């Protein structure tokens, strides 16, 4: 192809090349990572951002609430250093909440990429480090009241200058984290992946030239925007509202967080107004993020298309400074992402009347059920953190039952830890990992089942068994569907006969204590009395629901041995249940 003119083919080549670069960055990072938050939870994102802060491309898969949030970091870096302030071989590291607005574990690394001596773009990787110092490792800074308690703060620091590492910064980092080999190993993976992306971008520019590539990028943004607009255009104009509650902590007098959303559709424009949500909190659930809105928008517009700056140009997000999702530094942010799945779900709920054939009932609404135990392994004297993210139920859908035991809308390819791996690596015993019967909200299309994972710690240590925020607010039903069963945490010490419900962080227990992480079931979609009786029978056969639930919730009578449906009895029972509702 000619080097100076953009044509149909070159446009396609560049459209494919940019996501291929960010996906390759992701592959390198994930395969070489030392940290299950990266290799299993995929709590990272890889992007290419141009020097104006526009997102050229971002990897697919992994945690979705990182979508399109790298631009502000680059803009800030450009302001700090200026367009002449970067040299080839520089590596910048930052996690400062002033701009990044997430927990300090999310460490951003980026490197400059030059075209003909001029800075053009930055490969950027944000990844969750297992430790950044502070009061606790892992997810356990859930009661930090400021960033200093949470960990070290790096504000746009050059770790490498022109290819040469700053040994002092490296040593300060190393001495202030608990698992330096893990975090610094991840740092090396991040740098290697950015360097790879620099080479790939240079190849692209060498081949097509700067003008053609920038022209292509502009067209790609435009086309992406057009795709999104085409979807919104089909939705009826109007203002749609919904709200939900999320548990507040003791620091906020247990006052729940209000998530109040308004979605305004006007032609192909969509505005998501979050200004009605709670103000900044004392508990560390604050953030500076548009993720709730952009994830919801992405899900309903172009779920399978690669992400770029055009993906959100037709979306306006209203959110004021001082909102808990746009909090002012130094508000604590250790649990910054906790409410996001519920924010997404609430936006979807608002849109249910305009997209009745697409929107499911409420899902677990939190970032999975985290099973976290911290201890010291007597076999080698080393500290360890057992971590697994357990899925929960998704809401019934307009066309079928919700999926069971799956991670939230903000987590994509996030996998639980295999039992055999947990036991091989850490002194724990997984007694069971099971679906919870009757946990899916009854509906014409039933909510998916939540699960219960029972783990015994074989050495003393500390459990995190805290309410993620939805224990009091179960996943909602839609169109007369019923809510799912809420989440819970149970604990039993070795000398105790029974399990107790707990809400604790870094809670010390002796060896051979038993903890159960219980996740919510999804809400039901549609009236359970309209559910096909045959499906109810299958659910009883598979023990997804009990015979009592079949009778009381679905109005279906079955022979207790043969499970043959009593059709007449069921019809009568359904009539009675309908009548009883009216009174």
């Amino acid at each position: 192809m000619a080097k100076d003119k953009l044509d149909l083919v070159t446009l396609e080549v560049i459209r494919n090349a940019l996501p291929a670069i960010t996906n390759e960055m992701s592959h390198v990072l994930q395969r070489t990572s030392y940290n299950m938050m990266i290799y299993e939870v995929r709590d990272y994102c890889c992007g290419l951002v141009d020097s104006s802060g526009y997102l050229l491309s971002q990897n697919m898969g992994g945690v979705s609430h990182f979508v399109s949030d790298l631009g502000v970091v680059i803009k800030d870096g450009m302001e700090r250093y200026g367009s002449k302030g970067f040299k080839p071989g520089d590596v910048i590291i930052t996690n400062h909440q002033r701009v990044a607005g997430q927990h300090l574990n999310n460490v951003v690394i980026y490197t400059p990429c030059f075209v003909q001596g001029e800075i053009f773009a930055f490969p950027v990787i944000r990844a969750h480090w297992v430790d950044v110092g502070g009061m606790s490792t892992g997810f356990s800074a859930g009661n930090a009241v400021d960033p200093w308690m949470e960990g070290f703060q790096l504000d746009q620091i050059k770790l490498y200058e022109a290819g040469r590492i700053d040994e002092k910064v490296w040593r300060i980092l190393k001495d202030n984290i608990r698992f330096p080999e893990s975090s610094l190993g991840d740092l090396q993976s991040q740098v290697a992946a950015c360097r790879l992306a620099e080479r790939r971008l240079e190849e692209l520019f060498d081949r097509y030239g700067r003008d053609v590539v920038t022209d292509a990028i502009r067209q790609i943004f435009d086309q992406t925007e057009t795709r999104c607009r085409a979807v919104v255009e089909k939705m009826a104009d109007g203002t749609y509202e919904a709200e939900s509650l999320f548990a507040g902590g003791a620091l906020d007098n247990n006052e729940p967080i209000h998530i109040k959303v308004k979605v305004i559709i006007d032609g192909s424009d969509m505005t998501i107004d979050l200004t009605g949500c709670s103000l900044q909190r004392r508990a560390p659930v604050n953030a500076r993020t548009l993720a709730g809105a952009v994830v919801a928008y992405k899900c309903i517009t172009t779920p399978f298309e690669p992400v770029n700056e055009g993906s959100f140009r037709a979306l306006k997000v209203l959110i004021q400074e001082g909102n808990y999702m746009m909090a002012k530094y130094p508000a604590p942010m250790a649990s910054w992402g906790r409410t996001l799945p519920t924010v997404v779900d609430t936006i979807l709920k608002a849109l249910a009347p305009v997209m009745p054939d697409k929107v499911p009932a409420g899902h677990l609404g939190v970032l999975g059920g985290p099973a976290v135990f911290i201890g010291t392994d007597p076999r080698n004297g080393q500290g360890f953190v057992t971590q697994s993210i357990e899925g929960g139920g998704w809401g019934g859908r307009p066309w079928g039952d919700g999926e069971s035991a799956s991670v939230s809308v903000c987590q994509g390819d996030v996998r639980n830890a295999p039992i055999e791996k947990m036991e091989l690596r850490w002194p724990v015993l997984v007694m069971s990992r099971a679906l919870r019967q009757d946990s899916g909200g009854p509906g014409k299309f039933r909510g998916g089942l939540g699960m219960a994972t029972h783990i015994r710690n074989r050495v003393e240590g500390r459990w995190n068994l805290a309410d993620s925020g939805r224990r009091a607010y179960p996943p909602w039903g839609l169109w007369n569907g019923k809510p799912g069963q809420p989440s819970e945490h149970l604990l039993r010490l070795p000398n105790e006969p029974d399990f107790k419900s707990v809400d604790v962080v870094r809670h010390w227990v002796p060896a051979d204590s038993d903890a159960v992480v219980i996740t919510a079931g999804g809400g039901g979609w549609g009236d359970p009395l309209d559910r096909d009786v045959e499906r109810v029978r299958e659910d009883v056969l598979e023990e997804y629901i009990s015979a009592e639930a079949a009778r009381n919730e679905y109005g279906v009578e079955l022979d207790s041995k043969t499970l043959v449906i009593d059709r007449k009895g069921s019809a009568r029972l359904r009539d009675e249940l309908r009548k009883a509702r009216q009174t």
Partner: protein
Amino acid sequence: MALHVAVDIGGTFTDLIGYDDETGHVFSSKSSSTPTELTKGIVRCLEKSGMVIRNLVNFVHGSTVAINTVIERKGASTALIVSKGMRDVYKIGRGNRPEAYDLAFKRPVPLVPRHLTFEIEERLLASGEVLVALNTDQARATIEKVAQSDATAVAVCLIHSWVNASHEAELGKLLRSICPDKYSSLSHEILREYGEYERISTTVLNAYIGPRVSTYVTDLERVLAADGFAGSLLIMQSNGGVMSPETACVIPVAMLESGPVGGFIAAARVGKRLGYENVIGFDMGGTTAKTNLVKDGIPQLAHGYHIGGYASGHPMMLPVVDTIEIGAGGGSIAWVDEVGSLRIGPQSAGAEPGPICYGRGGTEPTITDANLVLGRLSASEFLGGEMPLDVEKARAGIVEKVASKTAVSDIEAALAITKIAVMNMSLAVRGVSVERGYDPRDFAMIAFGGAGGLHAVEVARELHIPTVIVPNYPGQFSALGMLMADIQHDYVQTYYRPLAATDFAALQRICDGLIEEGRLRLARENVVPEAMYFQRFLDIRYTGQEFSIPVPVPAEYIDGGDSQAIGETFNEVHERRYGYHTPEHTLEIVNVRVSAMGKRKQLELPVPEQSGSGNPLVGRRMVYFETVAEPVECPIFSRERLASGYRITGPAIVQEYACTTVLFPGDMLVVADTGELVITLKV
């Protein structure tokens, strides 16, 4: 007379290639697959080829029966037996949703219902110690329940059976005595690698397809025997090796992904014979293009695969030949999306109705239509002239569906279609090479499949691959590869230990144990000791990493406890694959792997008889290459008439029965002594 034959049942066609190793005569035939009566189809195919069954000494067979059983969900009603507390592990899986923004995501649908999943009271620790002894009374009672159920197959997979198989083995005995008529699979008989969900899934797949595949294999043996077959029957596996019918009945799961494999075996062999140990196999057919990288004469393997796709498919942990497949075949449809960008596939016009130019009712323009409009395919000599193509219809389709929507001419549109297809295919080739740390410049590309030769030089040029080879019989190359495959069985045993703390005596014992297992299986398959060959691998990673890399390790490193040499080998592989290594970091071993191979007698690759002695230059026509402005009057050659040593400089087109090879201006072709077309690309 010693006849060898391979029959490859694909989705659309059944291909046969056979030859007589005394006379060198080659037999071949192609017929439509008959999904409902596969064995009859095979016999018909043999009859059509003129081969006499009782004269066959070797019969190698590749079949889609296993994969179709899973995809169509037509397997046995299967029960699953697991450890106490683990009933739902198979249904729960890993809890992930690979399509992050998809509200309508689908998790894998289990092949075993929950009511046929049973728990057994027993528990092992990761060390192999028994925490809870097997409760044989409860086990017996449970198996009685299984016996009374409608399940005809049973899978057993207990927690930590990868380190201690005793409980599983005991259950197996009970199961086989209480319900001897049910097909049973025990996880440790298939693989001993940690990761319960993936191991359960592999074991369930095996049980699920077991009854159907074993019936099929035994039927085939019976039918062949009835016609006097007394040679050896071998079944193609996903790892690039073959196995005996007896083994296929025990681990049918090993043949699930065998479909695309044969061609890559043949690519390795052809490459080797021509002096290229490192080649990239490129197979472009009617619906997809597939690629695999061959290093040191061996197709690269992947350990683990999802049957039916990553997002909602079933994990299968046995090694498979590592291919990347994309929806770009001759029949892939070109379309303009809602914002005006031109896309190719993944929808395909398939064989019916096929591309527009077939004139069988196809209305969507395909890659084949574009090649015809550009003059690269001949309208009158397609399939040796058996099937005339309609160039004007193809042109009209391209104008209507592509050119008019993008404001370009017919030729521009056709060129854009082929170039975008080439770009998509080169991304796939990049995936198996550049992205795994291999420099394509060090490889030759072997192009086969019906459409391989049409685009190979363009794909190769994209990636700076210097040489393209179009082998003999490119249309039946997959079947040909089956004739050349060795017997191969792969074994794995998790051994999780820091490299520095490795007990090499124990490691040696594990290797020896796996080798012994391989030796016994090979012996049962009548492999003589001199033909047996074993290769050891250790899966290694930096301590704390999750993903390990299989590192080939010579026996002397293990026997001599040479952890330094092992570490150095790992660091080299890590550097190549990920662009960096950190020798100061400690290493850990995760798994021990052994490949047990039974070398089969190397057949001399059949050299096609040169038919017709006339002038190989059979005509000229106008062909578009790089640009619209300059169609070239291009010489057309008939491959059948090309003698070895013959040289052609592009632009040129070489036609044969089921394949067309395109040379761009400046590309140079020479016919090898053994008949392959070896093309040196213009830089």
